C-alpha cells in the first residue's frame, strides 16, 4: 500500500513571531523555518508502517514556495521514498490545499493519507477533514494510535474527554496528534542519500485545483499584552493577595 504524507513548511516552533508594524502580516524575513511538527509525526508514522511491512511506498508532498523543497528533503532523509512540490508563492488556504491534495490522491491512488492535525502557523486544523470530505473518505483526526488491519484502520483519537477509538474503511485520512510517536532525526548518511531521491515539481493547475483565497485578511495585530505582576515572598502573602486584592478565593 502507498501512503501519502502532506508536509508544510512553517515558522519554527521555537520562534516568537512579530507582527509587522503596518499590520499587513507577520515578519517572515530571516525567520527560521522548519517542517510543521505534526507533519514530522505523520512522516514518522508512515515510516513505522513501512518498517512493519504494512506500507510499500511513502510519497511526501508540499504546497508552497521553492524553499519548501528543503522540507521535502528533510522528509526524504527521514525515510520517505519520493517527493512532490506543488509550487505556489502565495498563501494557500486549507480548502485550496485540500483541493490540490485531492488531485494528487487521484493521480497517486494511495491507500492512506497521514497528515498533521494542525499547522502551527495558521492554527486552522481544517485540511485533513476537508480532504476527507472532498474524497468522500473516512477521517480519523487527532490520532494517538493507528493500527492497520486488512482494509480497515483502527484509530485512537485524543478527544476532549479522553480517548476515542473508531474504525475506518480504507482508503482513509488520519491526522496526527502529539502522542502518536516521537519523530526520528535524519542521520547524516540519510541526508546525503535523500539528495538523490526523486522530487517532482508541479503546479496547482496540473491537478485542476483552484487555490484562489476565499477569505480576506483585513489586518493583523499584536495580541493584547499582559504585564508581569509582583513576586510575593510567602504563601501567606499569596493567599492574602488572592483573597483581598484579586478577590478570586
Amino acid at each position, binding site marked *: 500500500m502507498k501512503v501519502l504524507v502532506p508536509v508544510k513548511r512553517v515558522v519554527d516552533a521555537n520562534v516568537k513571531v512579530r507582527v509587522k508594524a503596518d499590520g499587513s502580516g*507577520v515578519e517572515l524575513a530571516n525567520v527560521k523555518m522548519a517542517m510543521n511538527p505534526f507533519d514530522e509525526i505523520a512522516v514518522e508514522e508512515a515510516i513505522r508502517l513501512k518498517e512493519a511491512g504494512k506500507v510499500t511506498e511513502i510519497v511526501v508532498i508540499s504546497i508552497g514556495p521553492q524553499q519548501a523543497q528543503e522540507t521535502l528533503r528533510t522528509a526524504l532523509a527521514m525515510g520517505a521514498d519520493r517527493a512532490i512540490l506543488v509550487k505556489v508563492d502565495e498563501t494557500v488556504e486549507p480548502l485550496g490545499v485540500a483541493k490540490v491534495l485531492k488531485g494528487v490522491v487521484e493521480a497517486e491512488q494511495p491507500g492512506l493519507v497521514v497528515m498533521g492535525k494542525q499547522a502551527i502557523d495558521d492554527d486552522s486544523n481544517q485540511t485533513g*477533514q476537508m480532504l476527507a470530505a472532498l474524497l468522500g473518505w473516512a477521517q480519523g483526526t487527532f490520532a494517538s494510535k493507528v493500527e492497520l488491519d486488512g482494509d480497515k484502520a483502527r484509530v485512537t483519537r485524543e478527544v476532549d474527554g*479522553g480517548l476515542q477509538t473508531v474504525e475506518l474503511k480504507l482508503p482513509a485520512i488520519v491526522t496526527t496528534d502529539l502522542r502518536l510517536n516521537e519523530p526520528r532525526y535524519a542521520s547524516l548518511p540519510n541526508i546525503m542519500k535523500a539528495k538523490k531521491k526523486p522530487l517532482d515539481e508541479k503546479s496547482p493547475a496540473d491537478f485542476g485545483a483552484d487555490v484562489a483565497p476565499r477569505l480576506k485578511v483585513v489586518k493583523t495585530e499584536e495580541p493584547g499584552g499582559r504585564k508581569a505582576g*509582583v513576586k510575593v515572598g510567602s504563601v501567606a502573602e499569596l493567599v492574602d493577595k488572592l483573597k483581598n486584592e484579586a478577590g478570586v478565593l
Partner: protein
Amino acid sequence: MAILLIAEHDNASLSDQTAKALSAALQIGPDVDVLVAGKGAKAAADAAAKLKGVRKVLLAEADELAERLAEPFAALIVSLAGNYDTIVAPATSSGKNVAPRVAALLDVAQVSEIIEVVSPDTFKRPIYAGNAIQTVQSTEPKKVITVRTASFQAAPEGGSATVENVSAAANPGVSSFVENKLSESDRPELTSAKIIISGGRALGSAEKFQEVILPLADKLGAAVGASRAAVDAGYAPNDWQVGQTGKVVAPDLYIACGISGAIQHLAGMKDSKVIVAINKDEEAPIFQVADYGIVGDLFTILPELEKAL
C-alpha cells in the same frame, strides 16, 4: 440570515460550551437554531431549548450519531444547510472534527476559533499560537465558523424554544465507533472551571502529580490542567493538556506549578483573569504573564498552600 449552531453534548446533558458558542452566534445574528445530533439525546435538546435567544432546537437521533462520527454528522449538517447562511460550532474536539468536513462539502472556506465577532461577516482569530490576531472577512455564500469558547460568556437560561425532530441523513457507512476511554472525575471540567491548577514537567512522576496537585485542586474545587511535557511523560492524561494544541482556558484563577511558560502553553491560558506562577527559576517566562509569582520549590510551597487555605 439564520444561523445553525451545532450543540456540544454527551446525549444526557448539554455542555456549557454550547451556551458560550451561542453568545457568539447571537452577535452574528438574532435567528439561531440549535442542532442536537445524537442518540437518546432528548434531555440535551430540552436543555438547549431553555437557553435564552434560541429560536428552535432541531433534534436528530440515529445509532451512528450517538458518538457524533464525523461522516454521518457532516452529512446531517449539510442536509440542513439550505436554510442557513451561517453554521457555527464550538471549537471542541467534536466541533473541530466535523466543521471543516461540512465547509468542504459546501465548497466554502472555514474561519477557525474566532475570539471576537467584529460584524456578521468579519471575525478576529489568533494565529501563531496567539502571537498575532488576524481580522478576517468571509464573503462566502455560507459561513462556517468555529468559536473559541473561552472568549465568550455563556448565554443564560430563560428561553422556551420548541424542539423539532429532524431525520438523520443517509450514513456514508465508512466509519464505525469502537470505544471511548473517558477520564472519570468529580472535579469541574477544564473549560468551565473557575479555578485551574496546572502541573508541568517539574512534578517528575504521575505519583507526585497526584500527591501534590490533586489534594490542592480538591480543596479549591478546581479543575486540573497540565503542560504538554507533563502529558507526554505520562504524569497526566491527554485531556488535561492546556495550550496551543490542547485546551484553551480562561478561568478566574490559573495556578501554574513547575511550568516554564513556553509560548505554546501561554497560548492556552494567558486570557485567565488572575495567573499565579510557582517556579524555582526566577527567570522562567511564566513570570512575565503572572499577576503573582512565588520563586521556590513547589514541593514545599504547594503543601503549605494547601494548609493555608
